[in-house]
Every structure is written in structure tokens, then in C-alpha cells.
């Protein structure tokens, strides 16, 4: 612990009070303005739960139906608020049940503080009841983790954990606390962590690099911006908007970058990636300067790297030095927080008119509209499409809702067709692709922004992975709107089987229970729609409901998401059908 004290610089404001480690845990959370946690009790975390009971007026705990639900709910909360989501679980299975959500948070840079109970320190390594090495298990998927074995360590470790989770490129941290450390006493005082000597949250930016980037941008004839979640995490939405409006550069987002800019903004040319829009994917390979802002060139974004934007100079605005040149070799890397670097860049970029270049985007958009989009939004075929459900939701919410998606076809349709007018409105499992994410994440999101409409859009497969969380809705009355797009298949895998595995539908056809009855069993108002003429009214009823609402839409069974960049293909070889 001595080294920890040396490493960490803390704000000095403290007076000392004697208390147990368990009480100190709650005190630490309250000091960090975290008064809401998701979790599931069990033997090794019981002393902390006893303090949750003591502090029940000031500290709220949501009992989920599974630890995975708790961690996804905390993720949903974190994504809409920007604050770390707090999770409690017991040792052993409680802790291992968190792993999927932690891995999801790590790859999508979501701040979480997960607190797990652990067997008493004298039992460590003895294969005691519900003992598991959660530090070892969680190490590769956490930004940081630490095992507390003495009550006295609690304040410093929590301060450090919050600082690490929130700062720089955020991520999940896990604190494992042995039961004796929870029972043990300490002289409590809390000092927020301000600095850790081995950790640079935000690299200092280099003005020369910004100038170099600006020079290239100013001479570009066909510049193109791809932005990611960094704009949202860095709270740089306004700076980003100012930047693109001054330079007039057509801009496309990654899946996680969605909602940072109003989807109706004239410079918003859509989304890049495997099921992104036609124009930005194709023109990635025509631009002369590619400006990446707060994104990490995920393989679902780039397609085949060997043919990705080879003709372009690449400028990368990025907070994480490890992302520079990781996938795409940059010509100029501008390290730092985009909120600062974009402001700095504004001084050196000149106003420009790129209307000819913009027209190329418009032309390709027309092609996509005629071949794909119109068929989805205004289908002439009999079966309902996922696109038209999104269209109906847009109409009813004016793009004001938080859209929480699971993983699969419905997710791609939601990313493609949902309108967004406000930032932090697209809550989704991007990097990890965790089915089962949406329902619990929507519960957390609703609690994070109770005054906003939160709509979970989920496939019939993913829904059944975590629909136990309907119980959490029953108990908390969280007014989440749930839309299950039911095509009776694991649709995305089925689509790949159709396209790449000779239509051999191995284990993708799925029978489901009566979802309406299931929701009703949890006292949630519910209806099923299978006809086009009933859709708009059903969506309206759902949106107008003040309480949780469940809507199942029976979708055309073999609908496919297009455009599509097949794995290993170039972005410019995107298929329209």
C-alpha cells in the first residue's frame, strides 16, 4: 500500500472518521457522487449490502435478475450520462457473471466501477466456497483492477478506481474486496485522486502536429471525416460541429459515433462500415485526405486494410497513443483530447467549399436510396421490414429518443435508420457484439436520463438471453419501451448462412414463447403487430405510454441487411444486394 500512496496524488480535504470497510465502500461511492448501483447480493459481499440497507435513503441499489443484467444496466447508465456505472456482485459465480459486460465496456470504452466480494484473505488460494480468481480472470478485460485485503486500503483504491475509470479513454475497473476487509475497521477520510504517476490520462497535444494536419486539410480537394465515439466521450460534439461547418467536409460516423451529430445535418453523410451507407464506404477509397476523429479503425469499419483508403493521406485525432498506426498507418497523428485538439485546429483550418465533392456523396446516396432504403422504409412487399419499424419510431419520437440496441440485424437496421437529434442517444454493444445487452442496458439508460424516452430494439434471439430482466422492470417500474423485432431466426447468422454457407441454416431457426404473454406476466402492457396497417398506431401507443411497454413486431422471415461489405472485401466493394 505504501507504493500506492507514492504513486497517487490526491486532493487534500480530509477529516477522519472510524468505520467498517463495508461502510467505507458506500461512503467512497457517495464522495464520487455515485448514488445508484446495480447488483446482486451473495455471501462474500453481504457486509456491503448491509451498509446499502443502512444508507438506503441516500444510496440506491437496483436488484437485477442476473449479474450480467447488472453490468449491462450500469453500461447503459454510463453511456447516457458519461458517469461511471456502479456494479456490485458477490465472489465466485457473481463475479464471473460480470465478465461479459466488463469485456464489452472495455472494448467500447465505457466507464464502470465493479465491486466484487471475495472470500476472507486467510482463505485466498484455498479453493474456498465461491472463491474464484476474479483478478486473474478480469485482468485482460479491465482498464485496471485491484484486490483489497485490508479495510484501510479502501479510500485510496476507490479514489484511484474512479479516476482511472473516468479519465482519458474511459473503461471498466474492478475492485475485489475480501470479506475481512469489509468487516475490518479503518479511519476513513476521502481524497479524490487527481493524478497517477505511471498514467497519463490525456496526452499533451503538439501544436506543430495540429498545424501539420491543418495544412494538409486546407489543401485537400476531397477531404473526408470519419468520426467515432471519441467525440461523444470527449464531450466535443459542439467543437466537432464547428470544425466540420468551418471546413465544410463531408463527415460519416462509426456505429458508436452515431448521435454525436444530428443525423439530419447536411454534412452528415451517413455511417461507414460493414452495413454502413453506400456513399461514405465507396468514397473512403476516393478521398484525398481521410480525417479520423476519435475512432479506432475497427475491422468492421475498414474492411480489408490492404485496400483501405490507400490513396489518401490519413490524419488521426486520437486520445489513445496505442491506437495510432495500430490498424491504419497515419500521415499525421494528433494526440490529445479531441475537445482540445479540434479547438486548436480551428485556428489553422480555412473555410472551404467542397460542394462538387459533396455532390458525389449525394449521387451515391440516391443509388442507395433507390435500391435499398426506399424498400426498407416504404416496402411494397407484404411482410414487415425492420427499416419501417425504425421509420415509424422516428416519426413518433422526432429522433429525440435514446435508442438501445442489442446485436444482430435489428441493430444494423437501427443504426442505419434511426434519427438522432441529441448526443448520447445510441446505446449499443459495438466492439464486443454482446447479444443480451439491450434490455438491461435500456433499464440503466432510463435511470440515467429518466426524462427521456428510452426505446430498446431487440431481436428475438438476444431478447431471450436476458429477458429475465423484465423482473427488474417489474420491481423498479423503469418506463422502458421494448420493441422485439421477431423474424423467427438468428437473423444475422442466417443472412451469412444464406450468402456464404449455401443457405444451410444450421441452428438459426428459433422457436420462441408467446412474448406478449411473457411481458404481461411481469405486469407490462404488451401487444403484437404483424400487419402494416397496425404498426403506426402500435408505435404511437407505445411511445405515449408513461410506463414500460412491450411491442413485438413480426418481421418478414428472410429479410437481409444491405448494403454489406463482406468480410475481407474492400470498403469500395460494398454490395447493395
Amino acid at each position, binding site marked *: 500500500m505504501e*507504493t500506492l500512496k507514492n504513486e497517487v496524488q490526491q486532493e487534500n480535504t480530509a477529516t477522519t472518521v472510524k468505520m467498517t470497510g463495508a461502510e467505507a465502500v458506500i461512503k467512497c461511492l457517495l464522495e464520487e457522487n455515485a448514488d445508484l448501483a446495480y447488483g446482486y447480493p451473495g455471501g462474500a459481499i453481504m457486509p456491503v449490502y448491509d451498509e446499502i440497507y443502512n444508507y438506503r435513503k441516500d444510496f440506491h441499489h437496483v436488484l437485477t435478475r442476473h449479474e450480467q443484467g447488472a453490468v449491462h444496466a450500469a453500461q447503459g447508465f454510463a453511456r447516457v450520462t458519461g458517469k461511471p456505472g456502479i456494479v456490485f456482485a458477490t465472489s465466485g459465480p457473481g463475479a464471473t457473471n460480470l465478465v461479459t459486460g466488463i469485456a464489452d465496456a472495455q472494448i467500447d470504452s465505457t466507464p464502470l466501477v465493479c465491486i466484487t466480494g471475495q472470500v476472507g484473505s486467510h482463505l485466498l488460494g484455498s479453493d474456498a466456497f465461491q472463491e474464484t480468481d476474479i483478478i486473474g480472470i478480469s*485482468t485482460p478485460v479491465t482498464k*485496471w483492477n485491484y484486490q483489497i485485503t485490508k479495510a484501510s486500503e479502501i479510500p485510496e483504491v476507490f479514489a484511484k478506481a474512479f479516476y482511472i475509470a473516468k479519465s482519458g479513454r474511459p473503461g471498466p475497473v474492478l475492485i475485489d474486496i475480501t470479506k475481512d476487509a469489509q468487516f475490518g475497521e479503518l479511519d476513513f477520510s476521502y481524497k479524490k485522486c487527481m493524478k497517477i*504517476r505511471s498514467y497519463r490520462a490525456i496526452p499533451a497535444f503538439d501544436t506543430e502536429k495540429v498545424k501539420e494536419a491543418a495544412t494538409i486539410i486546407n489543401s485537400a480537394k476531397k477531404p473526408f471525416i470519419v468520426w467515432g465515439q471519441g467525440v461523444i466521450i470527449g464531450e466535443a460534439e459542439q467543437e466537432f460541429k464547428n470544425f466540420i461547418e468551418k471546413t465544410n467536409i463531408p463527415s460519416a460516423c462509426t456505429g458508436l459515433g452515431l448521435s454525436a451529430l444530428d443525423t439530419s445535418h447536411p454534412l452528415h453523410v451517413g455511417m461507414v462500415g460493414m452495413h454502413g451507407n453506400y456513399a461514405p464506404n465507396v468514397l473512403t477509397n476516393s478521398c484525398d485526405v481521410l480525417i479520423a476523429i476519435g475512432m479506432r479503425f475497427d475491422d468492421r469499419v475498414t474492411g480489408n486494410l490492404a485496400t483501405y483508403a490507400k490513396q489518401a493521406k490519413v490524419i488521426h485525432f486520437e486520445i489513445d497513443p496505442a491506437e495510432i498506426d*495500430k490498424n491504419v498507418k497515419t500521415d499525421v497523428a494528433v494526440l490529445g483530447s479531441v475537445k482540445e485538439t479540434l479547438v486548436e485546429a480551428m485556428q489553422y483550418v480555412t473555410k472551404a467549399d467542397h460542394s462538387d465533392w459533396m455532390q458525389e456523396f449525394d449521387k451515391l446516396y440516391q443509388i442507395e436510396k433507390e435500391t435499398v432504403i426506399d424498400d426498407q422504409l416504404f416496402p411494397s412487399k407484404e411482410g414487415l421490414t425492420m427499416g419501417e419499424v425504425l421509420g415509424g419510431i422516428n416519426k413518433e419520437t422526432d429522433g429525440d429518443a435514446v435508442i438501445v440496441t442489442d446485436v444482430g440485424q435489428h441493430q444494423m437496421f437501427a443504426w442505419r435508420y434511426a434519427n438522432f437529434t441529441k448526443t448520447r442517444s445510441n446505446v449499443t454493444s459495438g466492439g464486443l457484439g454482446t447479444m443480451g445487452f439491450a434490455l438491461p442496458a435500456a433499464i440503466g439508460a432510463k435511470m440515467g436520463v429518466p426524462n427521456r424516452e428510452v426505446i430498446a430494439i431487440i431481436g428475438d434471439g438476444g431478447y431471450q438471453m436476458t429477458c429475465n430482466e423484465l423482473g427488474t422492470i417489474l420491481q423498479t417500474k423503469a418506463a422502458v419501451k421494448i420493441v422485439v423485432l421477431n423474424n423467427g431466426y438468428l437473423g444475422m447468422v442466417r443472412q451469412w448462412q444464406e450468402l456464404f454457407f449455401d443457405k444451410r441454416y444450421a441452428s438459426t431457426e428459433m422457436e420462441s414463447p408467446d412474448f406478449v404473454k411473457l411481458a404481461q406476466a411481469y405486469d407490462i402492457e404488451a401487444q403484437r403487430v404483424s400487419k402494416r396497417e397496425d404498426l403506426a398506431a402500435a408505435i404511437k401507443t407505445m411511445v405515449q405510454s408513461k410506463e414500460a411497454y412491450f411491442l413485438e413486431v413480426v418481421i418478414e422471415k428472410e429479410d437481409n441487411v444491405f448494403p454489406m461489405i463482406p468480410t475481407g472485401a474492400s470498403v469500395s466493394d460494398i454490395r447493395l444486394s
Partner: protein
Amino acid sequence: MEEVKNFTFSVYTENNVGILNRLSAIFLKRHINIESLTVSKSEIDNVHRFTFVVNISEIQAYKLVGQLEKQIEVIRAFYHTKDEIIYHETALFKISTEHLYDEDIQDKMKFRRAHIIAITERYFVIEASGLKEDIDNMYDKLKPYGLLQFVRSGRIAITKPKMAISELLQEIN
């Protein structure tokens, strides 16, 4: 395919439980085998130094340093090629005492950094140090005498280029 070379990584870290796991997980995730590993204190109080030896491409080495440095408790990480370091390994050979006065063995001991560090009635122990190749060579020569035990340390390396850790820590503090 990029040319695979032998790289030595020097990683300066805080001295906390679990860091070895965190660092080795970065190699594991990328399916990179660690050829040797040495952990010791460093020239700075309370700062540990990990020396990893791996055979990878230079691009992989560059990316690995980024991932290593990204870990909260890593202060700095560096990678070096063989010509940028002065390095050494140490080995111990345990051999039956019946061979102690064997002239052949005495001959083989003429390798300049080998000497006997323990002699008992039943066995004697030779310590040798040098490059991996030197020790491999010695190993081949002593093997016919029946090695009762053999062990070799990980690589320890001092770099020719400066690694400005103290300055960095001062700047941060």
C-alpha cells in the same frame, strides 16, 4: 510477411501485485510466445523492470509497446534490437563429482565465463554466463557427462540508448 527479429523489451512498472499477469496477457492475446523473462528492481527506487525477449516483427514490437504502456501501472516500455543492447544470460550446470577431475571437462571449462561455484562429494556446480549461444554451446559439451540439473536465467539487458525514466518520473511528479 514482415521479417521476424529478436526483440528485447524493457518495461518499467510500479511494484504491485498482478502486473506480471497484466503484461503477459498482452503477449498471450496476440499469440506471442515469450522466449525469456526477467523481473528485477531497477535503477529507480520502487520501480520494477521487466525484461521480455520475443521473436516478432518490428511492426508487432511497435504495437506491443503501445499496449504495454497503456497499462495504468506501466511507467514506460521500450523495445530494442540485439545491437542496441548489452545482454547476458546465466546458467547453472550440476554434474556428478566423478567427472570433476576429467581433463576433458577442465578443457571445456576454459570458456571464459565459466567457473565452479560449489563442490560436494556427490556433485559439483558450474556457473556459466554469456550470450544464449555461448551457453547452448557449453550445454552441448557438458551434456555427455550427464547433467544432473540444468537451468538458465532469462536475458538481462542494459540498453545502449538512454531510457529517460528518472527524468520522466520527475516531470510527472
